[in-house]
């Protein structure tokens, strides 16, 4: 949908970076070095802690006396942050290793961790482009995506992804920590530290999993998280004339995104009302009127196409959307008329948002009308595009165009409203003195606009915003139904407003796991210690392997039952993993996904929140 980098790009890179087959770099490694792996994992954990710190930044303070009731997601975020703090303590270097004199190739596992850390760091930077920090250190939104990023569905999806990364890293690093291979260099202390860190990473994942089971992460949240673009102005497409429908759609969507970006920036600076000009206000109003009109025409064409194709429900919804777009056009027309009755104190420079609003009118008009060189200023509009000129495969993109355009008109109306209000407060909205009654004795050609005229203008913008929103919401439903690329707009809207998402029943496949009859989570595919020994012995008898898996599970249950019954505060955290044998058992129990397994580790001390640490 967008040519901008998205968070999903970096997330995929992070997962691929950790995947042993994801980056075949061709450099043969002599072996693995646990100290290098510890350092690389520490860097990854530092980035992950930045994420969990972001997720917990707005939560109420937890103190020994104040234990607020948190939502499952918020509680899991807090636990994840605390688990990562514990991981970081295990990974902290106690005996600094002297730097090697020659530059050596880091181990393959360390490189994987470094790659994942770098991708995650860039992903977080991308998310932070949507916020700014004011002089008092308070984070402020800088884009239309900011509310979606801090919404509950995206927060849960982000925690899920952090947990997946934690799990992936723990699985790989623990295998090396407990490896008996001569290719893995590292003393006993390094092995214990790395393994303990992995156990807490599993614990993080268990917390996230438990939160997911209490309040499942929707696929919408995950999709929305992946779709978050970097907060930059999308590239401009140039209208040349005679473009095919696909190119027109790309241009229109890019233009709509540009207008939204510029409108947000303008509204963000609304307090600086000297930037507001009547030329911009008039250009935005007249072009938004015509864009709404184009959308209404386009939606009528789409409804006809869907009806011809036998999609009655989609056709009906598009007909409704066309009627709503017509109503939005009428409200924008009223706003355009109101704007002809006022002036601003600033000379007539045209804002970037107004220039781009004109481009959007052109793109939508070229889609709606048969004339490939249609322009709003070229006399009579001519015939509308015949429905048969739209191929079935083009329809989702054309729906996306209308959806994006209506979202953009909503943003524009809100931005114009905010700017006019700020300018009116500053006394920068004027009217011709001649238009005032004779009892106004003002010796200048312009005077401050009477209150009722400003109120009338603001009201017309508010009506435009409401009408455009109604159309966009209807189109959001169509986009979800037709699975168009613009459905993320509807997901973002639903995440922010707390409305039910369009696919509430679909859960994230990452968490889907078969359940046993007794309600316990099924064992993972990872072999346990007994089964590992059989596999190492070359045993491939199914009955024996099944029996060994049962023994592993029985052992886990026995250990978990024993630990649950005991007071976990009375034993040190590392005690259970002191030997390789017990560490393997504990690891397997933690990997199993049994929510009770977290009691194998000492519960984190929740006396106070971690102090902010330095950025990586």
């Amino acid at each position, binding site marked *: 949908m967008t040519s901008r980098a998205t968070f999903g790009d970096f997330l995929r890179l992070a997962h691929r970076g950790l995947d042993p087959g994801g980056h075949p770099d061709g450099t043969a490694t002599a072996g693995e070095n646990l100290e290098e792996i510890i350092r690389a994992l520490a860097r990854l954990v530092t980035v992950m802690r930045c994420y969990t710190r972001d997720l917990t930044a707005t939560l109420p303070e937890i103190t020994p006396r104040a234990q607020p009731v948190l939502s499952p997601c918020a509680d899991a975020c807090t636990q994840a942050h605390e688990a990562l703090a514990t991981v970081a303590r295990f990974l902290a270097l106690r005996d600094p290793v002297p730097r090697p004199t020659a530059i050596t190739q880091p181990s393959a596992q360390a490189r994987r961790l470094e790659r994942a850390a770098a991708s995650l760091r860039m992903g977080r930077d991308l998310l932070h482009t949507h916020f700014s920090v004011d002089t008092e250190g308070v984070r402020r939104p800088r884009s239309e995506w900011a509310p979606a990023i801090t919404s509950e569905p995206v927060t849960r999806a982000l925690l899920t992804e952090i947990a997946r990364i934690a799990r992936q890293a723990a699985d790989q690093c623990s295998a090396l920590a407990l490896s008996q291979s001569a290719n893995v260099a590292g003393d006993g202390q390094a092995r214990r530290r790395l393994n303990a860190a992995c156990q807490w990473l599993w614990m993080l994942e268990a917390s996230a999993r438990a939160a997911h089971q209490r309040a499942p992460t929707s696929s919408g949240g995950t999709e929305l998280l992946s779709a978050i673009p970097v907060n930059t102005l999308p590239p401009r497409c140039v209208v040349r004339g005679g473009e095919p429908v696909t190119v027109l759609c790309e241009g229109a969507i890019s233009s709509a995104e540009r207008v939204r970006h510029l409108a947000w920036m303008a509204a963000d600076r609304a307090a600086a009302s000297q930037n507001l000009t*009547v030329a911009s206000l*008039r*250009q935005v*109003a*007249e072009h938004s*009127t*015509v864009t709404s*009109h184009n959308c*209404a025409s386009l939606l009528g064409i789409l409804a006809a196409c869907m009806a011809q194709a036998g999609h009655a429900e989609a056709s009906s919804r598009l007909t409704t959307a066309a009627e709503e777009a*017509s109503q939005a*056009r*009428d409200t924008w*027309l009223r706003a*355009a*008329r109101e*704007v*002809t*009755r006022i*002036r601003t104190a600033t000379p007539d420079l045209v804002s970037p948002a107004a220039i781009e609003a004109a481009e959007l009118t052109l793109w939508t*008009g070229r889609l709606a009308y048969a004339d490939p060189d249609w322009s*709003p*200023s*070229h*006399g*009579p*509009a*001519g015939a509308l595009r015949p429905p048969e000129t739209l191929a079935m495969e083009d329809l989702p993109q054309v729906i996306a165009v209308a959806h994006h355009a209506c979202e953009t008109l909503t943003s524009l109306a809100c931005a114009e409203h905010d700017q006019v209000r700020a300018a009116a407060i500053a006394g920068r909205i004027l009217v*011709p*003195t*001649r*238009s005032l009654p*004779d009892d106004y004795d003002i*010796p200048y*050609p*312009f005077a401050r606009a009477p209150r009722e005229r400003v109120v009338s203008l603001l009201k017309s913008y508010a009506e435009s915003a409401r009408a455009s929103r109604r159309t966009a919401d209807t189109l959001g439903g169509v986009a979800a139904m037709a699975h168009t690329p613009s459905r993320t707009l509807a997901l973002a809207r639903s995440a922010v407003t707390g409305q039910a998402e369009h696919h509430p029943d679909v859960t994230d496949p990452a968490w889907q796991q078969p359940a046993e009859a007794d309600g316990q989570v099924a064992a993972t595919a990872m072999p346990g210690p007994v089964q590992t020994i059989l596999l190492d012995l070359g045993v491939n008898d199914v009955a024996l392997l099944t029996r060994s898996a049962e023994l592993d599970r029985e052992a886990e249950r026995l250990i978990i039952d024993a630990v649950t019954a005991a007071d976990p505060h009375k034993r040190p955290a590392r005690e259970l993993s002191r030997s390789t044998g017990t560490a393997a058992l504990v690891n397997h129990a933690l990997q199993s996904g049994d929510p009770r397994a977290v009691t194998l580790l000492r519960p984190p001390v929740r006396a106070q929140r971690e102090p902010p640490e330095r950025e990586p």
Partner: protein
Amino acid sequence: MSHVISVRDRLHGGDGLPALLDTAYAAFGLLLSAIEEHEDPATGMFAPFVFAATQAANGRDAILFAPSLPARPLRPADAIVNRRGSGIDVPDIVALSRVLCQVLAQAAGAAPGRDDRLACLHAAQSAAAIHRLLTGTDP
């Protein structure tokens, strides 16, 4: 209808720059009202009329920057007509925009003051834009 003829006649009247500016201001107001009455989404001319309305407002505002414009309307009846609805049809709108363009362009060449010249020039450009939007040709 009679009002638009009256305004056109006054534009050609040659009663001096202040009177011309006063009449041009009234003429743009009249055009704005008339154009808004023709903004009908059911016709193919919807978009041109929406843009023409903006140009009428721009032309009216340009006149306001002329120092020679009288502070108060010389004919208060003009404002009352504007609020009442014009009833002017499209050919008369086009004709009025053409006349406005011509007389204001002449005034821009003849006015002694720089700001008066600029105001007339900008207003003439707006009138020309209205003509172009509604006919596709220059006045």
